[in-house]
């Protein structure tokens, strides 16, 4: 099954019943799949007129407690930043897919370009089976923490077919959705409100205390970042001279390159962050202990490398071995993603 189809199936398995998006390769393929898969299960998929409209539609669906998702490439997510920030301040669950072109959107994903004191957890699958699991986990986290959650993929993930069987994953009891709008309390004087400005209606007698809402949001964000255990795959680091850090599709190439280096007698290991936010700081720090150098590969000019430096705190030299690599399509197919090329760079970081 192709990655796009598998991710769509995983969203449906996770209970997603509303999806909206605007076509852009390699996100388009997921939008097409959702248009096929949602109607038979009673869901709705909208081809919006723009990314702004798509995230707005998804916001509306999310406010009713319907598991909802949207997405795009990083370009489209730029347009959505304001709404993602407002969704976070309205404490609404939403899954946002970034089927990115290369990895230039790391900062956009992990820092966000919206306003305010919000954060969005980010999951970065390396292949199709992992994407099936993490996409479902994203819905669970979004509902649990009432916050947007990002899934960070790419062209390879969208277009690689792998043997995979999509089954719903049980993450435990369904989170409470009593906050959701259902239209039942209109005119009762007790109508619910879901808004970036809070859940209290302004009343003449008591006024309006925004600080209360913003502080509550900040506390919820803090609890979320403490409550989510950072995830990473760590291998061959115990005796490693060089520890490589890479995420997503490049993480798979790095794994193959590290294993090939081991066969040549080079003591290499790797850490593959699976959550980019919260970043697996402790896993990176532990893996770096005893290493001569930490090498960071990203298909960009160096973004995650800053988080790696924060993790090792100067105790181990950090060498950036990545760099933007694109073929003529610009979709993120990278000539540098070659096990031999990457192996040479890893070995080179030691010299």
């Amino acid at each position, binding site marked *: 099954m192709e990655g796009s189809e598998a991710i769509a199936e995983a969203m449906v398995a996770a209970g997603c019943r509303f999806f909206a998006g605007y076509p852009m390769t390699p996100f388009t393929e997921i939008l097409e799949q959702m248009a096929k898969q949602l109607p038979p299960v009673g869901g709705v998929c909208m081809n919006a007129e723009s990314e702004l409209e798509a995230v707005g539609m998804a916001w509306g669906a999310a406010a009713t407690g319907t598991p909802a998702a949207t997405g795009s490439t990083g370009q489209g997510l730029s347009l959505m930043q304001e709404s993602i920030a407002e969704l976070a301040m309205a404490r609404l669950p939403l899954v946002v897919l970034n089927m990115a072109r290369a990895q230039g959107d790391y900062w956009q994903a992990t820092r966000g370009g919206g306003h305010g004191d919000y954060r969005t957890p980010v999951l970065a699958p390396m292949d199709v089976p992992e994407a099936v699991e993490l996409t479902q986990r994203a819905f669970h986290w979004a509902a649990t923490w009432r916050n947007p959650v990002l899934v960070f993929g790419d062209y*390879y993930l969208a277009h690689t077919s792998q*043997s995979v069987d999509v089954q719903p994953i049980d993450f435990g009891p369904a989170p409470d959705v009593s906050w959701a709008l259902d239209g039942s309390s209109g005119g009762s004087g007790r109508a619910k409100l879901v808004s970036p400005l809070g859940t209290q209606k302004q009343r003449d007698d008591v006024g309006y205390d925004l600080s209360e809402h913003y502080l509550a949001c900040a506390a919820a964000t803090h609890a979320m970042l403490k409550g989510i255990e950072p995830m990473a795959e760590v291998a061959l680091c115990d005796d490693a001279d060089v520890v490589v850090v890479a995420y997503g*599709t490049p993480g798979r190439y790095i794994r*193959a390159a590290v294993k090939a280096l081991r066969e040549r007698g080079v003591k290499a290991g790797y850490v593959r962050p699976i959550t980019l936010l919260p970043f697996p700081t402790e896993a990176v720090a532990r893996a770096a202990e005893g290493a001569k150098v930490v090498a960071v590969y990203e298909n960009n000019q160096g973004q995650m490398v800053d988080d790696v430096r924060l993790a090792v705190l100067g105790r181990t030299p950090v060498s950036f071995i990545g760099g933007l690599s694109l073929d003529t*399509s610009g979709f993120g197919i990278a000539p540098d993603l070659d096990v031999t090329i990457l192996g040479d760079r890893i070995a080179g970081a030691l010299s």
Partner: protein
Amino acid sequence: MERELVLSGIGGQGIQLAAQVVARAAIAEGREVQLFGSYGGMMRGGNTEATIVIGDEPVEAPPTVGSTWSAILMHHDYVEPTLARLRPGSIVLRNSTVYEGEVAVDGIDLHDIPATDLAVDLGNIMTASMVMTGAYARLTGLVALASLDAAVAESLPPYRTKHVELNVTALRAGWEAAC
């Protein structure tokens, strides 16, 4: 043990279809399979390539591979990245009807199959990649001919089901040509 197949050609030769047929046949035989196809924006004549990895365990190899156990070369245009992945012992099938130039890699197991000529003889030039796929099955033993037959029916879109029989015939022609 993972076995790799890289298919390279130009848009319109059926590279992506052939890759899907091989992948589906291997899945039907209970193997773990990974397929990554990439192609340029042109419907006809642009670069098109596919990488298949087949194993008995979940595939560890990344979507594109540094070296390949086997290759199908349908055309000489855009072939250099695939030639760079050949290693001593790689089983290589060359479409000798249209491929111009040598495959100058030491130690490979090279087989010339006039796939486009055979496809024309069958009445449809578009089946050349199926001819090549049939020949590949016989030369490598990686998948059974019967599995390919079933995979063709699964891989063609509903509006092309009338072509299943011709494609199956092409698979057989390739199988025979590879003896």
